């Protein structure tokens, strides 16, 4: 056997290192993070599984092209700070991405080791390196270019906005991030629950950016408190719009305004941003359902279902009109939800909500579905089964069937061209909109997608803004 092959065979013998997790029966009733992270020893062992491919598919599979073999090699050698630094070159939020990226369809999905066995746990390693540096690092700031005297306003402090801010501050520009909520982080704070992404991590990433010179203005609703044109009048040279999708979608079926029917946006914002899970220590209340139904099967639906379980539900049902195969959530989220006792009612769709005399939800009428021909999304279209009506009791329904484009900012900016669904039209390569000096990216351009795709859009826009400030539109 050639030396190379021996090396490869040895690597393959190391199994994928599992990240320790809180046991399902314990974690389903608390809001602490589920996986507890690698130890340095397990991280090094896992890093040894990487083949250090010459043409790494994983890098291609990453929307921001992180040097994956590079940072894994640092971990293998015990240089965790070096690993974190290398991650930062391409990804300003590695502790976040290590936790919430859909690795199975990106980097890990194309990992060569995964062809025969299980892929290298790239996400877990990314998380490890970022956590290690956050906790043990000296907080050394990344290098910064000399001041250019140019000012950029970033609207929205979610993943894409933070990426733009991080990139442009490093290039020597002045950056101000405007956030509508009273706390920064966007969907990372109001949407993703504590047990999946501790808020302390997001705030520490934001604090790190502020240390680098990024200015943050919360309570600033662009479109209301200030308009884009007013920002230019204030002396900003460029504006990046990364406001997220931000409009809840409802089912448009009878009874939807009953008390106890909430959008996932409302439910999760109460629980996460407002910390209603700590009520009455925090003042914002939340409906604590006993029989909870979550409509939809994406990540937001899983987050809602798992939150409801933690708030003391007796049972939580995911109701989804397609089959398991079409469920859009990350594999890890579905797995975690199932472990925690969330039930799945697939090929089921509600037709109306039922309430009592006080206007509170008591149940819903449903229909069974079967799958027909593929629709525009390429997924098989659900078709109602005749005579399959049945009733499901519930005291809380969380509607998590996607989001739309919030018109608050776009309505106040007529020069921004929108597509027919209300999303901003932006050049996919640069993020340039139809209004001079304005870029856009993330969910307000693509519709609901992932944290990392929003960050990828931010990265491209930051490059384009930098070029514009140097060379013009």
């Amino acid at each position, binding site marked *: 056997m050639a030396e190379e092959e021996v090396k490869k065979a040895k690597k393959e013998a190391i199994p994928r290192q599992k990240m320790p997790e809180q046991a399902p029966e314990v974690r389903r009733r608390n809001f602490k993070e589920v996986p507890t992270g690698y130890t340095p020893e397990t991280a090094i062992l896992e890093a040894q599984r990487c083949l250090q491919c010459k043409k790494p598919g994983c890098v291609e599979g990453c929307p921001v092209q992180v040097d994956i073999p590079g940072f894994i090699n640092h971990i293998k050698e015990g240089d965790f700070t070096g690993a974190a630094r290398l991650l930062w070159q391409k990804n300003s939020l590695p502790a976040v991405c290590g936790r919430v990226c859909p690795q199975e369809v990106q980097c890990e999905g194309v990992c060569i080791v995964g062809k025969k066995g299980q892929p290298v746990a790239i996400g877990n390693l990314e998380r490890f390196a970022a956590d290690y540096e956050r906790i043990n690092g000296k907080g050394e700031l990344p290098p910064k270019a000399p001041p250019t005297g140019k000012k950029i306003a970033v609207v929205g402090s979610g993943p894409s906005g933070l990426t733009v801010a991080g990139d442009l501050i490093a290039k020597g520009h002045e950056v101000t991030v405007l956030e*509508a909520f009273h706390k920064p982080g966007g969907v990372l704070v109001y949407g993703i629950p504590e047990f999946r992404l501790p808020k302390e991590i997001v705030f520490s990433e934001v604090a790190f950016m502020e240390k680098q010179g990024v200015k943050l203005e919360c309570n600033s609703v662009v479109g*209301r408190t200030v308009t884009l044109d007013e920002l230019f009048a204030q002396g900003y040279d460029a504006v990046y719009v990364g406001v997220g999708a931000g409009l809840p979608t*409802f089912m448009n079926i009878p009874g939807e305004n009953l008390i106890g029917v909430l959008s996932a946006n409302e439910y999760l914002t109460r629980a996460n941003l*407002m910390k209603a899970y700590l009520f009455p*220590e925090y*003042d914002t209340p939340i409906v604590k359902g006993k029989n909870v139904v979550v409509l939809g099967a994406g990540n937001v639906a899983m987050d809602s279902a798992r939150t409801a379980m933690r708030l003391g539900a007796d049972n939580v049902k995911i109701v989804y009109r397609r089959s398991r195969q079409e469920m859009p959530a990350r594999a890890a989220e579905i797995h975690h939800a199932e472990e925690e006792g969330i039930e799945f009612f697939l090929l089921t769709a509600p037709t109306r909500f039922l309430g009592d005399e006080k206007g509170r939800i008591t149940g819903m009428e449903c229909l069974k579905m079967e799958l027909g021909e593929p629709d525009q999304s390429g997924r098989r279209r659900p078709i109602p089964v005749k005579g399959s009506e049945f009733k499901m009791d519930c005291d809380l329904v969380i509607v998590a069937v996607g989001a739309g484009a919030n018109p608050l900012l776009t309505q106040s900016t007529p020069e921004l061209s929108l597509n027919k669904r209300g999303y901003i039209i932006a050049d996919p390569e640069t993020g340039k909109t139809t209004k001079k000096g304005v870029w856009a990216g993330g969910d307000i351009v693509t519709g609901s997608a992932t944290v990392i795709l929003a960050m990828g859009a931010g990265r491209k826009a930051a490059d384009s803004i930098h070029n514009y400030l140097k060379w013009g539109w």
Partner: protein
Amino acid sequence: MFKIVKREEMAGGTVILNEIEAPLIAGKAKPGQFVILKANETGERIPLTMADTDPQKGTITVIYMVVGKSTALFKTLKVGEGYKDVIGPLGKPTHVEKVGTVVCVGGGTGVAVLHPITRALKEAGNHVIAIIGARNKGLLILEEQMKAASTELHVCTDDGSYGHKGFVTEVLKKMLETKDVKLVVGIGPVPMMKFVSKMTKEFNVKTLVSLNPIMIDGTGMCGGCRVSIGGETKFACVDGPEFDGHQVDYDGLMQRLQAYCDEEKECYGTFCKLNP
């Protein structure tokens, strides 16, 4: 922090006025718009329609009734202290134009919201008849300000302790019968707005009401403030807070306002015990 520069107690301490430093909002706000206030780190986001703004001074004024934990907490804030967060201006401004004779009807703390709208309608050249009411004389607010803001003012109390004895709708009816009223603006408790709208519908007079449902973000993101307007679901925070009074499903709104009734009682009870 958004500092409180002036504080007044009204209606026997049940209603509080706060003038707050918020120059960005003061420079932008128009009558009919609201702000969201959050007192401290653990506080709730509470929407309140502005009672006044002073762009020169850079201040906004809110007037609220103490009804639960959050407003009780607001009440403890003194001049020089302030709110951790104030967000706004939110919602659509009132559409102000010259139409002729306008009747502005206000009940309870709704009078505070009605005040800048009344003034704007008068400034636009309308003949503005204001009717304000309260349960009794002690609970009446902003009488002098409303007198100055309107062309003529009528006051009602439920118990007859001051002005006309009876509901604002009784005086409104007289106006509708005797004058060529083009527009009615009714702001107050939901039942009041419901009965004002019911009456103006009989006279076929356009009516605006301002709704204050339960809300979180105030930017159209959560849908918690949804109200049924002419059978269609609208978000009060971005589509309102003002709506055509004849189209509002008031009963649905009243029910939705009770969504967290038990939790509010629990929270308020604990607060009252700790802050007697």
